């Protein structure tokens, strides 16, 4: 299939209700860190962008939100033109300019503090990172506590960034500044807002 067709195919079949469903899944995951919100595959973006990450981008991004893509996605002309056609989001030149960042390969990603952290006055002006992970059960378990969590919850996302626990600890110390993570697995979403503390990590 040529690029023009690839960039047009695979958007939301029902933009209003699909976007609402995706947003509610993200909102519930953000409000209850550690919970996994199931999400049917609404979007069919070109590889290496995953269906879940693509759907989140369609639901939240538009021409107001500069988008940063990691090198794996950056290399795909089809992904760039698909996101461009369906969201209209401009591509950010640097991670620090991005409102959203989509990371296809979290294990290789640049450090979290390279993204926009917001300011002390406006901590909301930070980057929200959408990390594509293959699943939420096979990685190193993370024991989570903080707002939204009744009893400590565990998720074990695969392919997380290097030294993630240490990086996350630094992210928390910057509060109220910091980045928020949306973990996009093939069958569901989990979130790590900047308030979530990782209690311990077992190998």
């Amino acid at each position, binding site marked *: 299939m040529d690029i023009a067709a690839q960039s047009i195919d695979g958007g939301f079949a029902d*933009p*209003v*209700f699909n*976007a*609402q*469903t995706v*947003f*509610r899944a*993200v*909102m*519930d995951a*953000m*409000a*209850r860190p550690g919970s996994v919100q199931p999400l049917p595959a609404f979007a069919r973006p070109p590889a290496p962008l995953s269906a879940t990450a693509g759907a989140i981008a369609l*639901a*939240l*991004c*538009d021409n*107001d*939100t500069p988008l940063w893509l990691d090198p794996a996605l950056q290399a795909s002309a089809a992904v760039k033109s698909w996101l461009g056609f369906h969201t209209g989001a401009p591509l950010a030149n640097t991670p620090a300019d991005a*409102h959203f960042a989509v990371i296809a390969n979290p294990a290789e990603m640049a450090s979290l503090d390279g993204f926009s952290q917001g*300011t*002390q*006055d*406006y*901590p*909301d002006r*930070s980057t*929200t990172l959408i990390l594509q992970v293959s699943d939420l059960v096979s990685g190193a378990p993370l024991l989570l506590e903080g*707002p*939204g*969590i*009744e009893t400590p919850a565990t998720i074990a996302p695969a392919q997380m960034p290097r030294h993630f626990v240490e990086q996350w600890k630094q992210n928390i110390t910057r*509060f*109220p500044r910091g980045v*928020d993570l949306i973990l996009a697995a093939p069958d569901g979403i989990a979130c790590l*807002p*900047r*308030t979530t503390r990782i209690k311990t990590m077992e190998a």
Partner: protein
Amino acid sequence: MTDIATYNFAYLDEQTKRMIRRAILKGIAIPGYQVPFASREMPMPYGWGTGGVQVTASIIGPDDVLKVIDQGADDTTNAVSIRAFFKKVANVAVTTETAKASIIQTRHRIPEHPLSAGQILVYQVPIPEPLRFLEPRETETRKMHALEEYGLMHVKLYEDIAKHGRIATTYAYPVKVEGRYVMDPSPTPKFDNPKMHRSPALQLFGAGREKRIYAVPPFTDVVSLDFEDHPFEVQTFDQPCALCAAENVYLDEVILDDHGGHMFVCSDTDHCEKRRADGHRGHLAPETSETHSTPEKLEPAQ
């Protein structure tokens, strides 16, 4: 299916919804912080809940069940018109029963019936900035939040004690969220403040005129500000509801005549009606034709 042009689902256009949804996510990630958003003109005046309506319109889906309350009541103008609005523009199911609703939009009360996980409480907020009456400049209050400089609020509460012998603030009583941001719980009576603490429901706040959205995720610490020697206290009432005999609920005073006659009744109409349907009678409950049971019936164990 109709042929005439119609509104987008839930009235707002999709770009506006995305903008509000992004603000809601940021609000949840930074509990108690007021996220600026580009509030839209709504087909109702500011002060009638345009902030809450925009938040509800951005989160609601066809499967949701909506309840709207105004000062606890399901049947007052604001509640009825907002409920009718969403019935019309989103075609969603509406209810007056707290337990059956998935989204509850509220003006100035938290329902008496405990909220459950999965429910969303949307507050209509007139003045989101708790420091506004102490410091009118937005640039300054923003700095105070940034530096976590809340001494002024404690001075205000202290002046209450110096003047009145107790903290005289009874509504919009300031709270601290997760030990960081001081937040205005909207003008709810302070009676409702303890219900916000570690509530299983997600709480979203929308201020349309002031263009701010903020949030309290479930199971988040919400602590009312106080002093060691003047701890936070809620209002108490020396008589039960005159219609349903409920105690430990928030009561409204209703004037009955121009000779000083009055009665105290539940502000939460759904709670009051449920109790009366269960046979609870207050001392002013009307003798209904559909005879329920004996007025002196014992209250069953909870």
